[in-house]
């Protein structure tokens, strides 16, 4: 602990840019009639995504005795409960938490902007993300590009992510110079994640915002899967300056399918020796009642600030990263 650690790691200019960005996004959504909401940071249930590890604490918050409370990894579940209760379009700016994520672009506690648009198509939501980013960074002429996940891999690697075998993916990873790729033990999606994050992502969003859309069904997360040849998960990711900024979904509404994905995630966690987590039964009940057709997106505000300020490290836009918190 050095003596200077009482000082913020962000510059005063970066702190002001954050304040300005928050004020600007609130006017953006207010002009568009989207309601700001707050939901709890602590929940008795957790996200089960096997690639995300929640933080938690044990405390008595209800008066009924101590129990485990999970810090939200995203406000998605309670916001969907609000949608099912008839909230109409809503947005939230909040802190979210993910254990073990620390690096140049990751901090375990970060700021998420998440919003939901009943009756929006995925395309309409992409347009709104673009409009918001242009407004927030004061760049009305920012270029936009949309490319299908399949076309991205076909065009840059000559590889069809729906059909490639693990063997092919492994040899391409080696050929592309990913260090030690032959030693990695990955499934198909793991190899695709490796290629995307190591070989494709650095070139995405170099001329403006790049929207990558329509993912393999095995990477649907909480998106609706559209039948077809091939079937596609209706979701998109937004990249700018070689960095992923946002994840958007045509939201899954079928409670049986949601339950099936929870069980599948739970099984994947168990198979990887990760602790079991309680699924959100309130979300399932809300979906039984009926989630309106909607599209939703989560955008990392710290990363947007990094792009706007040309920051190399996330600590440059955080007042007090964990080492100083």
């Amino acid at each position, binding site marked *: 602990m050095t003596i200077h650690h009482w000082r913020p790691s962000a510059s005063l200019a970066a702190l002001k840019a954050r304040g300005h960005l928050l004020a600007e996004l609130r006017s953006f959504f207010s002009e568009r009639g989207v309601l700001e909401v707050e939901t709890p940071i602590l929940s008795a249930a957790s996200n089960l995504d096997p*690639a995300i590890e929640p933080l938690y604490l044990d405390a008595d918050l209800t008066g009924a005795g101590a129990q485990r409370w999970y810090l939200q990894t995203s406000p998605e579940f309670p916001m969907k409960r609000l949608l099912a209760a008839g909230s109409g379009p809503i947005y939230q700016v909040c802190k979210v938490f993910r254990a073990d994520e620390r690096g*140049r672009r990751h901090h375990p506690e970060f700021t998420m902007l998440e919003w939901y648009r009943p009756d929006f198509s995925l395309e309409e939501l992409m347009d709104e993300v673009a409009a918001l980013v242009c407004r927030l960074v004061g760049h009305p002429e920012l270029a936009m590009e949309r490319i299908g996940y399949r076309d991205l891999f076909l065009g840059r690697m000559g590889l069809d992510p729906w059909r490639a075998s693990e063997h092919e993916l492994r040899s391409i990873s080696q050929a592309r110079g*990913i260090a*030690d790729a032959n030693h990695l033990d990955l499934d198909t999606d*793991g190899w695709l*994640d*490796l290629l995307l*994050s190591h070989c494709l*992502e650095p070139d995405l969003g170099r001329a403006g915002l790049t929207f990558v859309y329509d993912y393999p069904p095995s*990477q649907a997360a909480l998106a609706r899967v559209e039948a077809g040849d091939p079937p596609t998960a209706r979701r998109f990711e937004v990249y700018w300056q070689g960095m992923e900024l946002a994840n958007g979904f045509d939201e899954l509404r079928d409670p049986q399918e949601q339950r099936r994905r929870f069980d599948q995630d739970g099984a994947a966690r168990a198979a990887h020796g990760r602790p079991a987590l309680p699924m959100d039964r309130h979300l399932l009940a809300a979906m039984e009642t009926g989630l309106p057709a909607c599209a939703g997106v989560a955008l990392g505000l710290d990363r947007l600030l990094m792009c706007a300020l040309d920051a190399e490290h996330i600590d440059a836009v955080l007042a007090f990263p964990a080492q100083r918190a």
Partner: protein
Amino acid sequence: MASYKTNEFKGGLKIMLDGDPYTIVENEFVKPGKGQAFNRVKVRNLKTGRVVEKTFKSGDSVEAADVHETDLQYLYNDGEQWHFMDTDTFEQLGADAAAVGDAAKWLKEQDMCKVTLYNGAPLSVEPPNFVVLTITQTDPGVRGDTATGGTKPATLETGAVVNVPLFLEEGEMIRVDTRSGEYLSRAKED
């Protein structure tokens, strides 16, 4: 066997890879929007000094290398091994030429050195940053010439050759920076 998970990776951590001890030089956490995260690391082989890149699935574990640094006193060279002693326990350890490497030309009896031990045996030796050594051979000095800045080679008692100012004579003691191999100043008997 102790091990580290990828979330413990940081510069300086000592790990085992393919049977050799390595130190982590650089660690980068890489994660796509959704899905599998990776750690992209640069590691230096502690035996060969070679730096290579490796990719790990985040969450994987790697065996810890039993590597640590300790200050040992250099005692003598028996022609095959350089012998060091722990001045607290008086335990003696022999290091071979591979471990001593370039440090050999700076090692003077009784100097304290930083020795890296791997499974209890010396893996590498770092001489003190500054050593005082006697000139054993050099061309005759040029008397009075202390200002022109000219230099000449001088062989020291340990065998090292350094460039020294022209006025220095055989039998004089000098202070040398072992990191750059540069002459610093004349030294008095200590």
